[in-house]
């Protein structure tokens, strides 16, 4: 009985030819998925928040709550 001679060379190359495209593909897929599931919603959330943001109103509310040291609540 004679067996076929096993592959003696090019083993790393063969493995890389198979795995590298998969690795790159998956990485790119994960990056794109992250962009559209995390970063885009986050950018929209911030844009929406600052559309209706009144800085003076927020400052007055914080001042009344007493969190500042430079300005005390208007009653004191």
């Amino acid at each position, binding site marked *: 009985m004679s067996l076929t001679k096993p592959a003696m060379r090019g083993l790393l190359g063969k493995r890389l030819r198979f795995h590298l495209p998969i690795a790159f593909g998956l990485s790119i897929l994960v990056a794109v998925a992250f962009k559209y599931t995390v970063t885009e919603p986050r950018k929209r*959330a911030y844009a929406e928040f600052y559309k209706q943001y009144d800085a003076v109103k927020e400052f007055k509310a914080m001042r009344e709550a007493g969190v500042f040291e430079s300005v005390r609540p208007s009653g004191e």
Partner: protein
Amino acid sequence: MMLGLRVGAAAAATRFLGRRVAAIATPSGATMASHGHADVSQTADMSKPMYCDRVDTPLPDRAYKDELSAADKSLKQKEKGPWNQLTKEEKIALYRLMFRKTYPEMKQPTAEWKTVMGGVFIFLGMTGLVVWWQSVYVYPPQPRTFDREWQAKQVQRMLDMKVSPVEGFSSKWDYEKGQWK
């Protein structure tokens, strides 16, 4: 391929730890027997090539049987001729001269995992007792910042300051109704 590391655990332990520590660290006959390794020899001259049953080393440094009887010697002579003249029993006998265990015999599961898990749990238990004693006799009193009232005041202050109002902490608080969303 193994970089010459075809030595048993005892020899490796000797190399790294010194002879006396390796003698303690090598499993004793009692432990080995209870794990199903009852047929291990206790003394070996480690300055000469040794035999080992290892799944990752198919060809050990020497044959298993080196003191051959007259029958074995004649069989070895016959081995020098054409192999298709050997009977099946002779082939098996030659294999058993060269090797102690076959691959299926080597791969048989042992009961070692029970000892390992037992040891792990024993030490985890002892550690738990030590930690408990520490929490009673060693730890200082907790800082006041751990009290329920302090934590409540801290949360209120964070909401007043509007910590992370966009997507984080304060965004989960309904400022009109004064409650969590």
